[in-house]
C-alpha cells in the first residue's frame, strides 16, 4: 500500500504537527519506504496469537498493581510550574478557548 499526501496531512493534524510542504513530501517518501518493510509482517501467521503488551507476560499473567488513591507527594506547585511557558497566579495560561 502507499500513503497519499492527503493522508500525511491528516495524520499530521491528528498528531498536532504542522509540516511544511517540503517536509510533507519528504515524510511521505520516507513513510512509504518504511511501510514496505512493515508489510513483511503480513507473511507471519498470527491466527489465535494473543498480543503481547508486557514482555514478562510470556512467563505468565502480569497483574497490574494498584495503590491507594491518596496524595503521596508534597505540594510542589511553584517548583512544578518553574518550567512552564506562561503562568499567572498558579495557573497555566493558554490562548482563549471560549469566547
Amino acid at each position: 500500500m502507499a500513503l497519499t499526501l492527503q493522508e500525511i496531512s491528516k495524520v499530521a493534524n491528528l498528531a498536532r504537527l504542522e509540516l511544511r510542504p517540503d517536509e510533507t513530501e519528504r515524510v511521505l517518501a520516507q513513510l512509504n519506504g518504511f511501510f514496505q518493510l512493515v508489510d513483511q509482517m503480513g507473511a507471519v501467521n498470527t491466527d489465535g496469537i494473543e498480543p503481547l503488551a508486557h514482555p514478562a507476560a510470556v512467563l505468565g499473567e502480569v497483574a497490574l498493581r494498584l495503590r491507594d488513591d491518596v496524595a503521596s507527594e508534597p505540594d510542589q506547585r511553584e517548583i512544578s510550574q518553574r518550567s512552564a511557558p506562561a503562568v499567572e497566579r498558579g495557573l497555566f495560561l493558554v490562548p482563549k478557548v471560549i469566547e
Partner: protein
Amino acid sequence: MTTPAPNTSSTELHDLGVAELAAKLAAREVSSVEVTQHFLARIKQHDSLGAFLATDAEVSLAQARAADARLAAGERSPLLGVPLAHKDVFVTRDFPTTAASKMLENYRSPFDATVVSKLGTAPGGAGMVSLGKLNCDEFAMGSGNENSAYKPVHNPWDVSRIPGGSSGGSAAAVAARLVPAATGTDTGGSIRQPASLTGITGIKPTYGRCSRYGMVAFASSLDQAGPMARSALDCALLLSAMAGPDLDRDSTSLDLPVTDYATTLIAANTHGTGATSLKGLKIGLPKQFFGAGCSDDVLSAVRAALAEYEKLGAILVEVDLPLTELSIPVYYVIAPAEASSNLSRFDGVRYGHRAARYGDLNDMYKKSRSEGFGDEATRRIMIGTYVLSHGYYDAYYLKAQKIRRLIAEDFQKAFKQCDIIAGPVSPTVAWKIGEKGSDPMASYLADIYTLSSSLAGLPGMSVPAGFGAHGMPVGLQLIGNYFEEALLLGAAHQFQLATDWHLRKPA
C-alpha cells in the same frame, strides 16, 4: 586490522575503574573532591567530543564534599564518592534535563528519577557524585547520536565516526575516560550498541528491573535503564544500586528482590564445576545472527571471542530465532506507536517549548510541537499516530504485538537448549558521522541484532570483544533469560579475567 596495544603503566585517576576508585576512596588515599575535580578537568579538556550537555562544577563538588563527609565519618559502601554522569533522559533536580531536544531546552525537573536518587548522594543513595548530563539522540531515538538537537557526539576511537546511540554521550564519555561509569537507557539497543561501538561494557537488564520513574518516556513497554562502564564488575556494582522494585511509582517495575550482582559475580556461574569457571556453560548461537547481514570484520572478532569462551570451558550450540528479521518492522511499529502517545504530553502548556507566535489553542499546539521536535521524533510520531489510527490499528499495531509474542516464545524455545545466547551487537563497526544521515531506514536496519531481545524484554549485554575495520571496537552481545543478569555479568566477568579488550583505550 590495527589493534591498539594494551595499556601497561598508568596510574592516572581517570584510568581507574569504579571498583578501583571506590577502594582508593575507602582507603582515604584520595578524596571525592579530588577525584571529582580531576574528572571535571578532563571533561572540559575533551569538550569537543560533544559527550556532555550540562555540567556544573559547584553542584558536583558539593556532592563530592557530602560523600567525603560520609567517608570521614567512617561510612563504607561500594560506590561512595565515585563519580558518574547521567544520560540526559533521566530527570534531575540539580541539572537541566533536555532529552537532547529543543522541546525541553532549559527544562528543570522538580524531582530526581528513581535511578538518579538511588545512585546519588541524597540520603539513602549509593553516594555517587554526578558530573552532569550526557548527550544522546533526541528522546533516545536513534542509533548514532546524530539526532541530538544540540550537537553530535564523536567516537573517541575516531572522532570522524559516530559513538552509536542513543546513549552515545554515555558511551563516548566512558570510553574517553571522562567518567568511570554512566547511566544509559535501552529501548531497542541504546545501551548495547553504543557500548559495542566504543569498546565499553554495558548491560540492559530485564524489562522492569530498574524503575522507569523519571526517565523521559519513549516507548514504555520497552524502555529500560542500565549501567555503562568499562568492565562487567563495574556494571555489576552500579546495577546493584540502580535496580529494584519501585512499586508506588512505576507500575511495570518488577516486584523481585535484587541480587548483589558484584559480590555474586563469580559465584553466579553455577553451571561449571568450580565457581570461577565457565565450564559447561551452554552458549546458543542464533544462526540468524551470523548470516550475510553481518560484516566479516565484526563476525571474525565475535567468533574469536566465542573461541575464547570455548577455551574457557563453554559449549557452543546452534539455536534458531527464525523471526529475527521481522523484529525490525515489529519494533518500528510498536516503539513509534508508544512514542507518539508519550510525546503527546509536549503541548507547550505545562513545560517545554512554546512557539513565539500562534493563533488559537490548536495552532499553539501545532506550532510549538513542530518547532520543538526534530526530524526523527517527528517521523516516529507520524508513524505511531498512523499505526494507531482508526482502520490501521489491527493491521499494524495489533499484528506487531502478536508477532512480538512469537518472538518472545522463540527465545524461550532457544533457552531450552542453552544458558545464554551470544552474537554480534551491531552488523558493522561505527560508521562515519553523516554517512547514514539522509536515510533513516539504513540505521533502522542496523538495529537488527538488538531489537528482538528488547521486544522480548530480556536482559542483554555488550562486552568488548576485539577490533574490526579501521581499528574500531567490536562488542560481543550476550543475551540472558528473564532475571538472569547475574549469569550474564558472571559470563562477561570470566571473559574479562581472561582477555584485556575491555582495558584497551583510545589514543
